[in-house]
């Protein structure tokens, strides 16, 4: 695939993904696409670029299904949470906007635009204090770059050279408003660079280019080289929410983006780079079965008992007033 990045970071030792990593990337992309297509109200484009993160600790957004799966959260338990079931990752109390899997390193996600960035900064301070060479990833969309929390976080991360990578998936739309109508400077990487941090743009529809950029950024962070802001340039392929009207999106822009949809394009690329049709067909079938199994598992999982309503408000249930 051709990298359409406007400019890419000077890479120290850019690592190309191994054949095994490429197949895992494809598998994750298929799972995310499959699960997103089946889940009501979920938007498919949300997690695609996030399939490629080789991450240790992750803070995500309210569209975190892709990040959760990419980070290795249990597919069954993530899907169960989408439906508020007792076997969900939050026991049904969080729902689709509050996925997490601490054991998998997917630390938390937030429904408040931009609020994850300062939390990721705190995790990065923890990683820096631990001194074990860990790094943290904070994901958000282009819309989040308008809010103060993100800018406070960028400054703090750069000031203290924290091991954090901010991954901004720029799909060109903040809810229903195009980037050029809400940002005086629509070059988001350039704005991040003004905080004296490493900042790069990459074609977010190109899995391999994205992998390289993230791998570079994480290597730099782990080595004490400070934060990186990665602007992954993509395009939103569906409406902001499942049922929303999408007629306001210019037809030609959407058509061009759909041509570059990485889900089919990456498959074609793999076929031209050593993968066989039989191999990918088998992989597709295995993914379909895994996704179907996760939804069956979720639907079979009971709703949580109402008795659990006041559990986990505080560490000690007795503290909760007026129960």
């Amino acid at each position, binding site marked *: 695939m051709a990298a359409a990045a406007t400019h890419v970071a000077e890479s120290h030792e850019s690592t190309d993904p191994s054949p095994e990593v490429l197949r895992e990337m494809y598998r994750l992309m298929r799972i995310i696409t499959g699960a997103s297509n089946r889940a009501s109200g979920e938007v498919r484009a949300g997690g695609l670029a996030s399939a490629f993160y080789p991450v240790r600790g992750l803070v995500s957004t309210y569209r975190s299904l892709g990040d959760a799966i990419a980070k290795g959260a249990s597919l069954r338990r993530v899907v169960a949470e989408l439906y508020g079931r007792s076997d969900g990752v939050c026991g049904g109390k969080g729902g689709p906007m509050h996925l997490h899997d601490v054991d998998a390193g997917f630390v938390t996600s937030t429904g408040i635009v931009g609020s994850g960035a300062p939390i990721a900064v705190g995790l990065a301070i923890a990683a820096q204090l631990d001194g074990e060479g860990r790094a943290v990833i904070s994901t958000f969309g282009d819309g989040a770059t308008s809010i103060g929390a993100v800018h406070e976080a960028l400054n703090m991360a750069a000031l203290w050279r924290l091991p954090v990578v901010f991954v901004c998936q720029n799909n060109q739309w903040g809810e229903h408003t195009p980037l050029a109508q809400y940002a005086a400077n629509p070059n988001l990487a350039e704005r991040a660079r003004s905080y004296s941090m490493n900042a790069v743009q990459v074609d977010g529809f190109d899995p391999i280019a994205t992998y390289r950029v993230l791998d570079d950024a994480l290597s730099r962070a782990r080595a004490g080289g400070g934060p990186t802001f990665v602007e992954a340039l993509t395009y939103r392929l569906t409406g902001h929410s499942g049922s929303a009207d999408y007629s306001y999106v210019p037809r030609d822009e959407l058509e061009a983006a759909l041509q570059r949809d990485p889900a089919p394009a990456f498959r074609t690329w793999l076929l031209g780079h050593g993968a066989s049709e039989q191999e990918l067909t088998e992989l597709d079938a295995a993914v379909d079965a895994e996704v179907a199994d996760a939804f069956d598992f979720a639907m079979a999982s009971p709703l949580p008992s109402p008795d659990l309503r006041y559990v*986990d*408000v505080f560490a000690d249930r007795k503290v909760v*007033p007026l129960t």
Partner: protein
Amino acid sequence: MTLVEESPALATETKPMAMVAALNSALDIAMAADDKIVMLGEDIADPNGGVLKISKGLSTKYGTDRVRATPIAETAIVGAAVGLALGGYRPLAEIMFMDFTTVCIDQIVNHAAKLRYMSGGHTPVPLTIHTAVGTRRYGAQHAQNLEAWFMHIPGMKVVIPSGPKDAKGLLAACLADDDPCLFIEHIDIAFTPKEDVPVGEYVVPLGQANIVRRGDDVTVITYGRQVATAAAVAAELAEQGTSVEVIDLRTLVPLDIECVLNSVERTRRAVVVHDAHTFAGPGAELASEITEQLFGDLLAPVLRVGAGSSPIPFASSMSFHPTADDLRRAVLQVMGR
């Protein structure tokens, strides 16, 4: 074995301290014992040691990695503290004035308070936020008691000490607590008076009110700065034949409602006094609880004494916070005098 464990005498050794010194002592002991305790806040490193100086000397002793002076960025301060808590640390975030909690309220309300619950118990947030409020003439944006806001948020603990000894013990309890705690220091009692405070480790459990003075006729329920006012009014009224019981709540969440109800059941009259606005303030919750539980026992309606419903005026001609006179009038009113 440490010397302290072997010697009860040393463990109970006390020294006169103001509240800021008592808080400094609590922090010092906690940071020495647990290297997961870290502090974030504006100007908290030496030589400043924070706006009220509670962290004086601590960055020199424990390093600026653990006592970090931050940019003026309240959202990032509390957000980073939440992240540190998720990363296995026990952070203390300092928000210089309570009014500035409005700047970072998203991180407090939507994240610190809710993350344990939303994750089904997988992401607890052991975080202490230290902030300050006072009655000095700083105008309307540097002196507002907003504790009722945080009482209203399930998942937040709210702590307001009335003196140096409790301040030390309650801060130690917050730092060891597995839930987010908002610790509110009242500036008027931060530097004076002094009190004998244990020099070594000292903990006051959260959720245990303190009966400051025993009495039989009226229960005055209060916290923070107003405890001293209530005790003074009670002493004065005792000479005139009215026996006032004074309860220092110490913590608004957890709320020691048992202590309050046990007292009012006996005295059958209650007055709540606080610096926060009367309207929809903590006193409204207490009055309602008392009335719901003890309606048949009460000899008079529960009265609330608090601040009026205006922003805090600057001019000294405009009174704002409740005074001893206001409290005395309320007590005499419930006594029918």
